[in-house]
């Protein structure tokens, strides 16, 4: 993670956090990668349908959610930097802020889903909406899982369970949360913008 200390210039043998979470992250990247490519090739066979259906999406809420997730991810970078300095309370506050923005993401997404379902659109409406709903709901579930992980990390940080020397748990939670952000960074332009 980024900080301004001398140790940030070392090359580490393994990524930050528990190594197990990275195998989980790579499995998730693989699953979403297959999904993204399947969407792109399905679009190649139904360009008019995909372009027309895409026009009915709320691009503004998609963009706001991108800004929200990126900012939430940034808050977790600050949480890791704080605990590396032994500042448990500050770390807890940054994680709480990151979770708060997670709720904002979910709220905006639920409004978007409400608009879609109110218009009578479902998974079976057409191929575009099948992909759109599947991808975004799948990602939505990952956001919820990420928030649960961050909540557990936050509770432990609040009780003084982490320190400047022992903060692997915070880095593990942050790594998962960054992955959730990273996936949305591709999902947003792919589904909402590219035509």
């Amino acid at each position, binding site marked *: *993670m*980024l*900080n*301004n*200390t*001398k140790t*940030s*210039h*070392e*090359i*580490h*043998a*393994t*990524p*930050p956090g528990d190594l197990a979470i*990275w195998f989980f992250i*790579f499995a998730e*990247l*693989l699953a979403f*990668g297959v999904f*993204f*490519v399947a969407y*792109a*090739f399905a*679009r*190649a066979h139904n*360009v008019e349908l995909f372009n027309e259906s895409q026009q009915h999406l709320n*691009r*503004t809420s998609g*963009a706001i959610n*991108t*800004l929200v997730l*990126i*900012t939430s*991810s*940034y808050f*977790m*970078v*600050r949480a890791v*930097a704080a605990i590396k300095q032994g500042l448990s309370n500050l770390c807890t506050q940054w994680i709480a802020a990151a979770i708060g923005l997670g709720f904002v993401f979910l709220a905006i997404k639920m409004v978007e889903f409400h608009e879609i379902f109110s218009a009578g659109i479902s998974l079976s409406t057409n191929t575009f909406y099948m992909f759109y709903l599947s991808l975004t709901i799948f990602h939505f579930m990952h956001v919820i899982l990420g928030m649960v992980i961050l909540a557990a990390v936050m509770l432990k940080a609040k009780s003084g369970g982490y320190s400047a020397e022992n903060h692997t748990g915070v*880095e593990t939670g*942050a*790594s998962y949360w*960054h*992955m959730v*952000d*990273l996936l949305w*960074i*591709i999902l*947003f*332009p*792919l589904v*909402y*913008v*590219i*035509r």
Partner: protein
Amino acid sequence: MDNNPHKPHFIRPCTRIWLALMILTCTTYAIGETAWSGTAVMLAVLGTAVIKVQMVANYFMGLRRTRWLWRGIVLGWLLLVSSLITVAYLMTVK
């Protein structure tokens, strides 16, 4: 005079990355709000996403301070997925 080479900058590096990510996201949104389309626009939007993913992976996830193996896995995944998306898009260009 302070000669400390590790003196923190006024704006933290991670904050600069966050600002760049926000600006790039607004750029993508602005392109989406125009009537622009075509291969060049698609490549610009997808290229922007690739840059953003690399920024998150290297600076937020901390992969730039790890062995090439770990960065290579994420970069390889990113290049493979974005290349296949580009191929799928180009199949539709007449």
